[in-house]
């Protein structure tokens, strides 16, 4: 163990003093090579000071806000092997600590080694989310491993700033993120061999090169090799099958129309102001669901499932509205049963409850199947247009795009209106384009004249 002192670097431009703005480490922290230790500020810029070595922070050289001169001791690190102040004989503090090797489990997690797994095999099953057992922390302990006796330091002590190693060893160490100065060499003249590196790595002396490129934009250009295999299982497999079934069977056509929701939104805000406390806040979605229910009275052919094996379309009297929801495991479509029988607050409550149920995995089977038409919305991420995939074997899906304020010509004047597109897909085998268009225009009429939503 040695002590390695990092001095306040010369930032250039003839600056003699800099202000210490922020510490990124504290005493006792393990640091790795290239890790940013502190931010310092000159008159011109804030500069990050990285660590040139792996080690553990013994002492910070200043307080935030302090003006420090270039060349003063910024930080003292404890490092494997001789430090850069060994000759001054002040390595004593290092004796007391039974410091583990520089690697830690936390660092391993950071490198992405920990895996979240265990998707529900069936969408209806309890969507249990557990993480896999944490990565074996074999590298984290301060394991005593017998290290071959270091050669007699003889006259070379204090000049080890440049480690002895062949070019291949030096390059490998660099790529592994290892500081060779810390690695004991066993070669005839104390050079570090490949075997020494192997041993050092086994002891956990090095960290994966996870820190490579931190803050270096050059890394963006890195060409990477390797392929990760991700099994398509559980819910993901179900999603894949459903999507493929839908696209294979159904000739989709998508119809996009823009809706002026200025009034609808005003109404919604008024309703929220009046009833929000009591009945819960409304979003656009329950209003849209209501509009769909009303429009489906005129266009019952949209509220259907097409059994193409039997060659029969099943039109449903009730509106069982599928509401697409994103969960950690993937896309799920809980079903709002009998949407036609609920007022907007009822719809809002039920949508909230279902979304929560699928997210925490408590949704029941009948809450996840049996929809007759589907509504899909990405909320603020809704974009301006999308091409929704029909929830097979249904025949229609209504997609909601983002609400944006846009200039609109209204009565010969350009005014700002809240506009929202609906992007809807239909099964062209059983839904004709004109009927689809009329259906959407009907929804539009309800939304643009929101009083109609409340007229039975």
């Amino acid at each position: 163990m040695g002590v390695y002192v990092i001095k306040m670097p010369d930032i250039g431009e003839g600056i003699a003093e800099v202000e210490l703005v922020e510490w990124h480490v504290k005493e006792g922290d393990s640091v790795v090579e290239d890790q940013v230790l502190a931010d310092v500020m000159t008159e011109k810029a804030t500069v990050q000071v990285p660590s040139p070595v792996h080690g553990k922070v013994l002492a910070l050289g200043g307080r935030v806000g302090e003006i420090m001169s270039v060349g003063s001791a910024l930080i003292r690190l404890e490092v494997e092997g001789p430090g850069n102040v060994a000759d001054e004989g002040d390595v004593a503090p290092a004796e007391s600590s039974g410091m583990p090797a520089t690697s830690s489990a936390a660092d391993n997690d950071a490198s992405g080694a920990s895996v979240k797994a265990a998707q529900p095999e069936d969408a209806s099953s309890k969507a249990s989310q557990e993480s896999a057992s944490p990565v074996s922390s074999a590298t984290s302990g301060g394991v005593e491993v017998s290290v071959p006796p270091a050669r007699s330091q003889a006259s070379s002590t204090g000049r080890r700033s440049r480690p002895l190693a062949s070019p291949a060893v030096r390059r490998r160490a660099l790529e592994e993120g290892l500081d060779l100065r810390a690695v004991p060499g066993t070669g005839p003249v104390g050079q570090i061999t490949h075997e020494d590196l192997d041993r050092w790595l086994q002891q956990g002396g090095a960290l994966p090169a996870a820190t490579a490129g931190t803050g270096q934009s050059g890394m963006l250009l890195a060409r990477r090799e390797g392929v990760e295999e991700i099994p398509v299982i559980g819910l993901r497999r179900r999603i894949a099958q459903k999507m493929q079934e839908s696209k294979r069977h159904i000739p989709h056509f998508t119809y996009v129309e823009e809706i002026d929701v200025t009034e609808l939104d005003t109404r919604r805000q008024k309703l929220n102001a009046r009833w929000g406390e009591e009945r819960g806040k409304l979003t656009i979605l329950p209003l849209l669901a209501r509009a769909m229910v009303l429009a489906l009275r005129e266009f019952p052919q949209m509220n259907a499932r097409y059994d193409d094996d039997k060659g029969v379309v099943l039109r449903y009297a009730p509106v069982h509205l599928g509401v697409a929801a994103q969960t950690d495991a993937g896309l799920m479509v809980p079903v709002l049963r009998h949407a036609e029988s609920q007022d907007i607050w009822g719809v809002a409550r039920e949508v909230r409850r279902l979304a929560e149920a699928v997210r925490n995995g408590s949704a029941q089977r009948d809450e996840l199947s049996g929809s007759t038409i589907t509504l899909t919305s990405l909320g603020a991420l809704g974009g301006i247009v999308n091409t929704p995939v029909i929830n097979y074997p249904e025949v229609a899906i209504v997609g909601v795009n983002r609400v944006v304020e846009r200039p609109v010509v209204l009565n010969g004047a350009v005014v700002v209106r809240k506009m929202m597109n609906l992007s809807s897909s239909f099964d062209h085998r059983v839904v004709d384009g004109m009927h689809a268009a009329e259906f959407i225009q009907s929804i539009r009429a309800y939304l643009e004249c929101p009083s109609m939503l409340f007229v039975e």
Partner: protein
Amino acid sequence: MQSTNVLILGGGPAGYVAALRTAQAGIATVLVERERPGGTCLNIGCIPSKALIHAADEFHRLGAGGQAARLGIVASQPTLDLPRMNEWKQGIVGQLTTGVQALLKRAGVRVITGDAVVLDGKTVEVRNIDGDAGQSQRVICQHLVLASGSAPAELPMLRFGGRVISSTEALVPQSLPDSLVVVGAGYIGLELGMAYAKLGTRVTVVEAQERILPAWDTALTRPVQRRLQALNIELLLNTRLLEGDAEAGTLVLQPAEGESRQIQADQILVAVGRRPRSAESGIDRLMLDTDGPFIRVDEQCRTSMRNVWAIGDVTGEPMLAHRAMAQAEVAAAAIAGQRRRFEPQAIPAVCYTDPEVVVVGMLPEAAQAQVGDVLVASFPFAGNGRALTLDAADGFVRVVARRDDHRILGWQAVGPNVSELAAAFTQSIEMCARLEDVAGTIHAHPTLSEAVQEAALKAMGQGLHA
């Protein structure tokens, strides 16, 4: 307006190697070169000078007083077909530069021929594209690599022009001057001076310092000095140049002692070193940190400006092609996101005088100063069979090692073809070899390299043939 990931300024050994490597890594790369790829090295440096030196050697060997006669080979006085020699030499240059062009093309590097002007750290304007003054183009890049190289240094009192030439012109002699004054007894001046002398020119070498090749010790340079004498090259050491007249070809010299004198020559070769092109092409606009005339870089060849890199001669001594190429590899790897550093243990230096000189690692004096107790041992080529059969026994191989653990710190050699020993020397140092490692390696017989083994043995006190 063009955009690219990497823009490399200069197509010399630094620039073209960096371009090949970034392009091979799949990074869009543009290389801007004023003339032909290959830079000074291939076009007007290492390669044509070695060709000229070889041709001069061959010519001289057969001539009156040449070595062929000593071997019992007597030829009628050879004649020199200078255009043919130039043609042969330029043929080699052409072959190599065409090869570089082909490599660049194959790697997918876009080469723009024109004058680059750096506008800022991410924008370069290329003017006079393909020699057309009206053609210019701006290129925007994420990474700018400065590899603009170096140019022969000029003396303020003796500008290039008229009878005053630089190495560039000396490498393509249109006619052979009767007399040539070489200003500067560094490696460029001596290599070319000796070659001209062998071709029949009367050569005078003027050097301000007290010895030739002043960076190296006298033991190492003495065989070269002996050869200069044998070639009737007049050596004026400790002599400063006061003034010169490029038209008349006259120089006023001031020896350390005595009166100033005037000399006259058909041509005057100024070989006082090279200056980095670190402030041209708008590079000065970037206000990069510098070390003297050089651009300051870190061990990954980063300059003080983010994503601006510098490699090769613009970054400092030694201004050698192989250092430039090694830096280029490092910079390209760093740009590609790999971890690499430029951290050689030793950079070989080779001087193609007659005899050749090679220096790798520490000289005895420097080792003594830095390490303290060192072993130094020389093995003379007079004891090496192969050197004798080459009729070139003046010279030696010398090793410098630590006394305590026998780790080799440096190698020097002077003698015939010793440039080829550079690889063995450098490798032993990079591999942290001990004297025992070299001594315990079987060296082929009869070769010059036996002297390498013998030097190691001698340093261990176990010399065999000495």
